[in-house]
Structures are given as structure tokens and as C-alpha cells.
């Protein structure tokens, strides 16, 4: 039974590797963020399967964390493109 879950986890990791192709090729940055978001969710699923396969229940906390934190990276991406942080470019003469 555990071997089946391990096989599923392996299948999902292969999915992530396949998705990497989009990160490499992705014409504009938003595509890469889409891929990163998908990897986040696939990572959550893999961690849950591994938690079941390796009988270590506390990995589920890590999966919970991943589900929460992928949003932050996307928020940072949005922050940095729609509103640039107030950097005074070269006129800074501290």
C-alpha cells in the first residue's frame, strides 16, 4: 500500500519536472509564476502522499505550510510589477 503512495508521489514529482519546461520557455514572467503556482500545489500533494507512504504524520504540517506560503510569492511578484518600491534611482547621493 505504501509503495503505491510512493509511486503516486513519484508520478507527481515527474509532473513537476515536466512543468519545468514551461518555466524555462515561458515567454513572459507571468507564465513562470503560473508554473511556480502549479508546482506549489503539486508539492502539497506530494508531501501529503509522502506523509502517508513514510508513516511520518508531521510532514502534513509542512504540506499545510506550503499551501499557505505559495500565495506570498505571487503577492511579491504582483507587488514588484504593478507598483515599484520607491527606489530613487541614481540621484541618491547619500
Amino acid at each position, binding site marked *: 500500500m505504501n509503495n503505491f503512495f510512493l509511486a503516486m508521489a513519484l508520478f507527481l514529482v515527474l509532473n513537476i519536472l515536466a512543468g519545468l519546461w514551461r518555466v524555462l520557455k515561458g515567454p513572459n514572467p507571468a507564465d513562470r509564476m503560473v508554473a511556480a503556482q502549479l508546482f506549489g500545489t503539486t508539492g502539497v500533494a506530494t508531501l501529503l502522499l509522502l506523509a502517508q507512504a513514510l508513516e511520518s504524520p508531521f510532514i502534513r504540517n509542512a504540506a499545510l505550510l506550503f499551501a499557505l506560503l505559495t500565495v506570498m510569492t505571487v503577492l511579491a511578484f504582483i507587488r514588484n510589477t504593478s507598483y515599484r518600491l520607491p*527606489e530613487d534611482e541614481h540621484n*541618491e547621493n547619500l
Partner: protein
Amino acid sequence: MTTVIIYALTATTLFSVGLYGFAIHPDLIRKIVSLNIMAGGAFLFLISLAYHTGSPEVDPVPQAMVLTGIVVTISATAFALCLARRIKEKTGQCLLEHRRKDTET
């Protein structure tokens, strides 16, 4: 035993790739990312040893070392990124060696 060999080999590969990336890239942000890859490699080597002890329960001392290492690495990275950002503000370049065309303030 084979698990240890696989992960230890991955660890040394990560370390070497990170070292190469650190040496090859002039851009500061790429250097800092390569340093984090080197750190990942060093931690993976330590934990592959911890797993190796054969007893079902993994050796806690390398795990404590890696936890301390992760927090040290994230604080060093944050400090380096702040310095890089400050250099960009001052010189308009985020490079260590400034190309001649920049406006040296």
C-alpha cells in the same frame, strides 16, 4: 547504504554547481542565489549522514546543525541583498566590478 550514497553525491554536486555559479556570474543576485545552492548542498550532505545511522530514529545532532545553518543562511542572504540594493541605488549598477559606462557617484 545506497540512499546515503545517492543523496551525498547529490549534495556534492549541488555544492560544486553552486560554487561554479558563484564564480561565473557577475550579477550580485545570481551570486547570492548560487550561495544558497551551495548551502543546500552542505545541508543535504549533513542530513544524508544523519539518515545513515541505520537506526530507525534519525540522528538529531546533524538536524540541529542544519536548522541553525538554515537560519544563519537566510539572515546572511537578507544582509547581502540589502547591501546589493544599496549599491544599486548608489551606482546604478548591481555588479561588483563597475563597467566603465556607469555613473560613479
